[in-house]
């Protein structure tokens, strides 16, 4: 007669996973997870782009692409987390009777741990490689165009921006730029820390006191963009905004001429 000890009667890991997946709450969570993942993918691919600012430079296009694809990549994680939360809420214990005893804990399941770790590592590597590649591309493009770049000295001060065009000899409260011309922003603060953020150009850099930060871009679409401060800087931080304009070269030159005619200070 064969002898069996208690270990022989325990289900195998595969049987445990099979039993686990057949549970009603698990299958519901699974369905909900797929549903929420699909919702987030749709949001990321088709709705999100409408919520993002207009694209007025290649850098901003890169920002939008990253935001969209990272949203899609993270959709399964967000979907599963939301599904678990929703399922827990739906099936939470109610009433005066005490809750039933909890089932046996699910012990470490090797394949699940390996798959989960591998997927997490893959996501992280994709994010790192994508980000570094994008940044390197921008830097290379910007440096290639830096020889003929329009230099703008950007000064943040509580609670306004001012822009000095040293080659043109003018200063302005509004930021006017010619289209398809590489621009080099030399950003500094006159007082506390600010953050220079021409939103639709896809640039955001700190404005520090006594230290110049350089950022480059090339506006490639005519229109108006917002210049904001992205660092909480005091009483009127919310009003530390101004308008920027990407203009034709002729319009920009005309604006420069007008500013010079009025003593070099232009609104």
């Amino acid at each position, binding site marked *: 007669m064969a002898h069996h000890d208690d270990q022989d009667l325990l289900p195998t890991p595969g049987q445990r996973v099979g039993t686990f997946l057949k549970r009603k709450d698990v299958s519901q969570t699974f369905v909900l997870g797929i549903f929420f993942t699909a919702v987030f993918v749709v949001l990321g691919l088709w709705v999100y782009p409408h919520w993002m600012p207009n694209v007025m430079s290649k850098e901003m296009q890169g920002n939008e692409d990253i935001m969209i694809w990272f949203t899609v990549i993270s959709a399964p994680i967000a979907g599963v987390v939301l599904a678990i939360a929703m399922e827990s809420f739906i099936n939470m214990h109610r009433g005066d009777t005490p809750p039933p005893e909890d089932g046996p804990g699910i012990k470490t399941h090797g394949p699940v741990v390996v798959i989960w770790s591998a997927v997490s590592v893959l996501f992280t590597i994709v994010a790192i490689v994508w980000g570094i590649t994008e940044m390197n591309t921008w830097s290379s493009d910007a440096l290639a165009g830096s020889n003929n770049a329009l230099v703008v000295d950007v000064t943040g001060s*509580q*609670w306004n921006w001012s822009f*000095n065009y040293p080659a043109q000899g003018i200063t302005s409260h509004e930021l006017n730029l010619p289209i398809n011309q590489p621009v080099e922003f030399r950003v500094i603060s*006159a*007082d506390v820390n600010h953050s220079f953020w021409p939103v639709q150009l896809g640039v955001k850099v700190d404005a520090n006191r006594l230290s110049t930060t350089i950022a480059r871009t090339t506006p490639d679409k005519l229109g108006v963009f917002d210049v904001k401060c992205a660092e909480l800087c005091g*009483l*009127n931080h919310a009003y530390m905004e*101004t*308008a920027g304009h990407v203009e034709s070269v002729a319009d920009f030159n005309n604006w420069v001429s007008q500013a010079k005619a009025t003593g070099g200070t232009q609104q």
Partner: protein
Amino acid sequence: MASTTASKSKTALGAVVAIALGIAVVAGVGVELHAHSYLNAPTETATINGTITAPDGKSYPHAFITDGLYADPIDSKAHGACATCDGGHPTWPSYGPFTHFVLPAHAYVTVTMHVYDGGEKLNSPYFANVVGTVGGTMNVDGKDVASLAPDGVQHTFTIHGLPTETQDPLFVNIPMPKTGDGGQDQAGSPLPKGHVVTFSFITGGKGNYVWNCEYPCGDTTYQGFGAVMGSQGYMSGKVTVL
């Protein structure tokens, strides 16, 4: 079974109501704080007196505002103009008696400022320039000027607003000249000799704007932006164009 379903419904309803209440409370607090951010600010509504033809050839209603700028509450009281200034802060300089200005839309606004305070070097020399006025100048004691020396600016009166699609932009920067040393208002008066600064600008459509001083005249906290520069009123206020 029926009681379980009813219990689930109650729980779900409770959750929805709790979330809705939470959103309502947060939104309500935000709206109230925004609406009352300059509550009780002494308000001056511009006086309209006839029309004027601007350099652009157009005729505008001519609106007038008068205000002052004082070294401290004692100084402003002595000039009979203390309204904004707070007796709890006897060393704080202040614009006054008004810090909220109501202006007509599409009007030619002329502002007269009586200024009494010393001056030092601006953090950002840009704000030593007169910007956004008719002709790009202001008048100081009868003389038109387009800028001041950046190291001799008393305070600035700088109007600006959010570049929204719903209101016209308005940006005006006026550097205020510092008072001369030793001068007096009148013979025998202990008050310093001040300046009379006038400037004009043209308003666009309706909108809400703010103004503030760009000279860091607060205490030494945060590069001079503590105390008076970190408080509403005094060196900041609101401009409403109706």
